[in-house]
């Protein structure tokens, strides 16, 4: 008699494939891979119902290393392919992985429409501010002045802010973390997973070969406390080693500014409280940049709205209720017909 024994709890390692991981030694992608595998273990995610879809790029190699279903598609199209997967089978947990070129350059439009439609995907953008796989050309997120093979005298175009982009196009879940924040990252990813609808997570990732240290101005030991603020819904926007600094809204100039609690009469009560349901606040947080302001990490925005695939399938049920399950013979005879004896 063959009894289906319940699978015992999976560990992070169980989500790893037998494939040799082929990123450059020291690449931030390794840490993210670990973070994602830990997240799935903590979520007790069922590998058979989990799909990783990616485009092309170093980041996009990701699915080959996950012991789940995986589809390494073509450059820039992963949000569209993933949308098809989710529409066809809403039961699946669909994760989308790609780089800043993949999802914001060639794939920007698909990312935008997946977000605005609010289809239930977890979209992870590995932002290393460079084209890694093609050997180091600048990307739409590269800082002005980036010298690269295609911009030998330095890039001249303003980078796009991934988070502001996601908020501007109507994304309902916008969060940020970093490859090196091994505790923070899984927490953010779990929020993204539990959010119904499109979740957008920008993960700062160090490309050690072509853009090393792109984020050290806010991730390095010395500066991280003062240059990062980890936002949490309902909590005051405090940061700094002793959480002695905070953000307040300057009402006349309508922008956030940094104050120090205790200094010239500022009390903790004056500190703005994070409201992840407020898109305008999220926008202000997303705009903050060192050195004058810290980089906001965590869930910047989390609204709730019906998800696309649910609504689509609801209409199918509605139509089936209204017209009865489709009868093809009836359909062929719909409209005016005539009979020849």
């Amino acid at each position: 008699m063959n009894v289906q024994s319940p699978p015992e709890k999976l560990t992070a390692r169980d989500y790893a494939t037998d494939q040799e991981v082929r990123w450059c030694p020291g690449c931030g992608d390794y840490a993210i891979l670990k973070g994602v595998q830990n997240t799935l273990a903590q979520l007790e995610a069922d590998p058979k119902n989990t799909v990783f879809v990616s485009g092309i790029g170093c980041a996009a190699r990701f699915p080959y290393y996950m012991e789940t279903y995986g589809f390494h598609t073509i450059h820039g199209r992963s949000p569209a392919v993933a949308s098809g997967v989710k529409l066809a089978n809403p039961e699946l947990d669909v994760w989308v992985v790609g780089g800043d070129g993949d999802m914001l350059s060639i794939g920007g439009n698909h990312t935008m429409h997946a977000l605005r439609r609010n289809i239930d995907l977890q979209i992870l953008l590995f932002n290393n501010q460079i084209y890694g796989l093609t050997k180091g050309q600048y990307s739409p997120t590269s800082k002005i002045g980036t010298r690269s093979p295609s911009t030998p005298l330095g890039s001249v175009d303003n980078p796009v802010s991934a988070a502001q982009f996601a908020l501007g196009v109507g994304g309902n879940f916008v969060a940020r973390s970093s490859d090196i924040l091994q505790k923070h990252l899984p927490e953010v990813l779990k929020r993204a997973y539990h959010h119904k609808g499109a979740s957008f997570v920008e993960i700062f990732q160090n490309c050690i070969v072509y853009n090393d240290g792109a984020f050290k101005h806010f991730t390095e030991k010395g500066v991280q406390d003062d240059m990062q603020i980890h936002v949490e819904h309902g909590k005051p926007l405090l940061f700094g080693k002793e959480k002695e600094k905070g953000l307040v809204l300057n009402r006349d100039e309508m922008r956030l500014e940094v104050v120090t609690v205790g200094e010239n009469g500022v009390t903790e009560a004056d500190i703005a409280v994070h409201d992840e349901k407020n898109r305008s606040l999220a926008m202000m947080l997303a705009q903050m940049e060192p050195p004058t302001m810290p980089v906001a990490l965590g869930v910047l925005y989390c609204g709730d709205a019906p998800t696309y695939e649910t609504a689509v399938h609801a209409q199918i049920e509605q139509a089936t209720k209204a017209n009865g399950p489709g009868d093809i013979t009836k359909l062929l005879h719909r409209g005016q017909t005539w009979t020849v004896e």
Partner: protein
Amino acid sequence: MSEAVAIERPDEDRQEVESAVVRFAGDSGDGMQLTGTQFTMTAAIAGNDLATFPDFPAEIRAPAGTTFGVSAYQINFGARKIMTSGDQLDVLVAMNPAALITNLADVKPNGIVIADSGAFTDRNLAKAGYEKNPLEDDSLHGYRLVAIDMSRLTVEAVKEFGLSNKEALRSKNMWALGLIYWMYGRKRQASVDWLNAKFKSKPDIAAANIAALNAGHAFGETAEMPAELSGFEVLPAKIAPGTYRTITGTESVALGLLTGAQLANLNITFCSYPITPASSLLHQLARMKEFGVVTFQAEDEIAAAAAAIGASYAGTLGITSSSGPGIALKMEAIGLAIATELPLVVVNAQRAGPSTGMPTKTEQSDLYQAVYGRNGDAPMPVLSVSTPADGYEVAIEAVRIATKYMTPVMVLTDGYIVNASEPWRIPDPTGHEKFAVTFRTDPEGFQPFVRDEATLARPWVRPGTPELMHRIGGIERSYNSGHISYDPANHQKMTDARAAKVAGIANDIPEQDVTLGEPGGKLAVVGWGSTYGPINRAVNNMRDEGHDVSHIHLRYIWPLPRNLGDLLAGYDHVLVPEMNNGQLKTVLRDQYMIPAEGLNKVTGKPFLIGELETAIRARLEK
């Protein structure tokens, strides 16, 4: 409930004709498409065979009275088999000067022109570009002109319902329909019923339209028409018994895809982006939700193709559709479906190119793109639709091949076929042979690229299946495992396997038959797609004249039927008429080393039977 009143006129003194071509032409606002479909339905019920072609303007809603705002509907109906909507018009109904000036050239010498003189105002004449009123000078002497002030007569006919003049004039088309019904001795009841149904909520509008219909009919009855217009009779055609409907190419493809999906036991995920003339397929399928059909209007064609591929990966039947420019955009994604060996149906409603070209005009110029238009060695099957009804069988076949061979399949229709309609004997879909897909579920020895020995197809696994988790992608895959492989020998092996898989489909499709004529002889006229009607009729006529010519019409463009080379070798000459610059011709010459000659027409319009007869005659006299 209004009724048709006037008794039908006895048929004694009607002139019997084997077939007739009538075109209703008027302003976009004049309801010519409705008028045409009503006349079509009535002709069908009267037992005629028929073919129709609607021709609406490129502009969305051009200003009233302008030449580019003219909308027309043509029907060819007869007591014999009807192959095309007709080369030349027996009767043109022109509701305004613009309609007359843009359509007159198509009228037979001495053909009948019925014009609404009430619409030939100075303003309308000017808009159409007439210096003088053609109804009043003798510029129409080559035709049998019947100028009637339909506008006024319609307004009078509906007086009793107290409509505004504008509203009243809306029934003008029904007045004209009534007159033509009389002219061909047709019953009005079907249209009366239809009007009552359509305007159920507005009974007076229904009544007014019916009154106009009757008035037009009565006018024919009573008015002293020129003797030779005493009315015609078109007897029923010999038509196989059964239940019929009219069907357009769009409808047949939509129904075929749905039937195919049911035979394969799959749900459809249809992903598209609007484009003329392909959009109507999206519109059709969007109304089939109770069949579990998911339709997705993507942000662009690339996303549509990509989403369809994702949907196939997830275990439904992914379908995408577009026209030439949109198909061009999909090609990179189609390459991914070829590489990952996922089923996908791609429907291309061809239109005149290159680039934006003439979106509302028909052409067959995407065959090169379908057969050759991808990067890398990327073979995929290509099927074509020959008539408005043919789309049903072709779509089913596309689904069968795509799912059985794990490959994208291209289906080529065109701007003519998607809009044209013909009577269709409604088949019994449950009678069709099933080809239910069996998804792989057995972990035993599973590898994603182990091929079926017969078909060379790889297994199809639904994500969600236990113990079959695997990864696929566009980078070359190792022969069985599907893992990334840069091994030279493996790439050769996979390239050969992809080619062999598609080539092998030739053994799973019917041998090519001779559509009309004998296997071998002096001349074979080889066609594909919507040239079917005119070629068949032209060959038929030439054979009646005793010429040694046969018609071979292809459904399968790639791979070609396995016997085609031998078949064509049996003819002294091979002529390939195409609405392009000679694209199928290239494939035939390459594959069979047969000196096929092209007959090419690139005007955005279908071949005329006459054009083909002339060309055939020329070849035969060589």
